[in-house]
């Protein structure tokens, strides 16, 4: 882990709903903003939750704006729904910077995102610079999310499963077999597993897993790799594509 991981009390400085169930939120956290690296993540909790929900929730950072971290959060359960109820000026506790991020590209990169997987890649693009940016979404209902991303990344190439937005297909349809540019990918496990068949020369993937501590203490978030079990939170969340055992 780079930077001194710690729990910081932070204020919400901006919030916006992107469509019905995605929250774009900014929190002021100078210490993390200064040291966080693309692919690293933070853990959040709301001090007014009491002890339920109990655990902090992990999220990628999608951009850094001065002292603010920007996050893109899909409302999928209790914690995320409660976060969406908070307003500008409210307090959150943020733990970070967490995990190992992407290593810098040696040539122009390709970003490959599945849905919310775009979040850490937007930040990578902010730091590493633009390259191709391929996005796949389910389709229907994802318009506002795609618009939000396109406003930040005009070169976005969009695919959707149902063909309602951009080209029908998945993000992987935007890639050639044996691609030689360095690929940065984040999305559903299925998408990343399928990437293996494309045999890219260099590909780093950012993974998700259920977490308890987020600091490498509990071994709750392990995945199977060719070198045995690794912790997503501390050994990842970014891994080399070849390292991961996908069918575990």
């Amino acid at each position, binding site marked *: 882990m780079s930077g001194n*991981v710690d729990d910081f009390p932070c204020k919400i400085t901006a919030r916006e709903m992107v469509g019905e169930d995605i929250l774009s939120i900014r929190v002021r956290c100078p210490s993390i903003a200064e040291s966080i690296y693309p692919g690293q993540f933070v853990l959040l909790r709301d001090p007014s939750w009491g002890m339920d929900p*109990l655990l902090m929730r992990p999220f990628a950072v999608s951009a850094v704006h001065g002292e603010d971290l920007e996050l893109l959060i899909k409302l999928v359960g209790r914690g995320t729904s409660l976060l969406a109820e908070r307003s500008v000026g409210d307090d959150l506790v943020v733990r970070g910077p967490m995990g190992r991020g992407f290593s810098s590209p040696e040539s122009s990169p390709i970003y490959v995102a599945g849905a919310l997987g775009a979040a850490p890649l937007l930040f990578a693009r902010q730091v590493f610079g633009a390259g191709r940016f391929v996005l796949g979404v389910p389709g229907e209902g994802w318009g506002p999310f795609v618009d939000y991303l396109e406003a930040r990344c005009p070169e976005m190439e969009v695919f959707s499963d149902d063909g309602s937005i951009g080209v029908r297909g998945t993000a992987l349809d935007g890639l050639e077999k044996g691609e030689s540019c360095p690929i940065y990918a984040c999305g559903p496990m299925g998408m990343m597993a399928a990437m293996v068949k494309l045999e890219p020369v260099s590909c780093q993937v950012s993974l998700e897993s259920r977490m308890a501590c987020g600091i*490498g*203490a509990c*071994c709750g978030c392990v995945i199977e790799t060719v070198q*045995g079990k690794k912790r997503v939170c501390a050994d990842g969340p970014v891994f080399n594509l070849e390292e991961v055992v996908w069918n575990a």
Partner: protein
Amino acid sequence: MLDLSVNIGSVPLRSPVIIASGTWGYDESLWREDLLRHVGAVCSKAITESPKDGNPGHRIWETPCGLLNSIGLQNTGIDDFVDEKIPKLKSYGVPIIANVSMEDERGLALIVERLVEVADCVDAIELNVSCPNVDKGCMSWGVSPVLTSQAVSMVQKIWKGPLWVKMTPQAPDPEGVARAAEDSGADALVVANTWLGMAIDVDSRKAVFDRVVAGFSGPAVFPMALRLVWQVSSAVSIPVIGCGGVSSGRDLLSMIMAGATAVELGTGMFRDIRLPENILREVKAYMTKEKVEDLRSLIGIAKR
């Protein structure tokens, strides 16, 4: 000057707050002075004879105010602990408690023999006869006074330093187990490890964990852990360390007043990396307000 130091038998601790086994990592970034200044000691992850991969499948499930875990003692084994971990850990200056998992007697002897080599870097052994997340050994020892006594005697033969026994709340007769441990020479009791729980994923219609049952911890279990501490500390005269759901200064004070000499923090660390500091701040405020100078004067006070 408020005095928050305590003694666990012959082990002096600068603070009554210990980090529980399995809830703190070995990564260097976690061993900063500013994070650990308020901590009395750190318990290692359970150590087994050989490296262990731990359990497959889901390992973590959140419940109301609680946490189910089925890690299954994943660790790099005793040789790595002695050869790689200890040299680093000793440099941080925080007392280290080696949490030793009881699998079988032969393995236990092997582990303890290797710990003897680094006895000056291990402030106590915490004999773990209470992990519910493995098929063989561990908790099956801790539920029985006879087997607990057998395990403690075994360690005693090899290890001359302080020996703590971490009990399981699943013991049908916790006082019996506690007395057995005391009689066999344990220097302190940790009350307790996780409770047996489970979860079902209604979408897949299956138990969440491959082993079905899992260890249950967090604020949810605090009232039961407190009751066990009260019971056990009345049954023995060695120090008791309260463990289970402690997450505030009031929780620590309750444990102390119920008869504990110190507490271990596990799950609480996951939601507040500065929990030791925050707890001690609350405890100090209480002591100042109530004019208590020595925390030790509160041990077991609720029973008097």
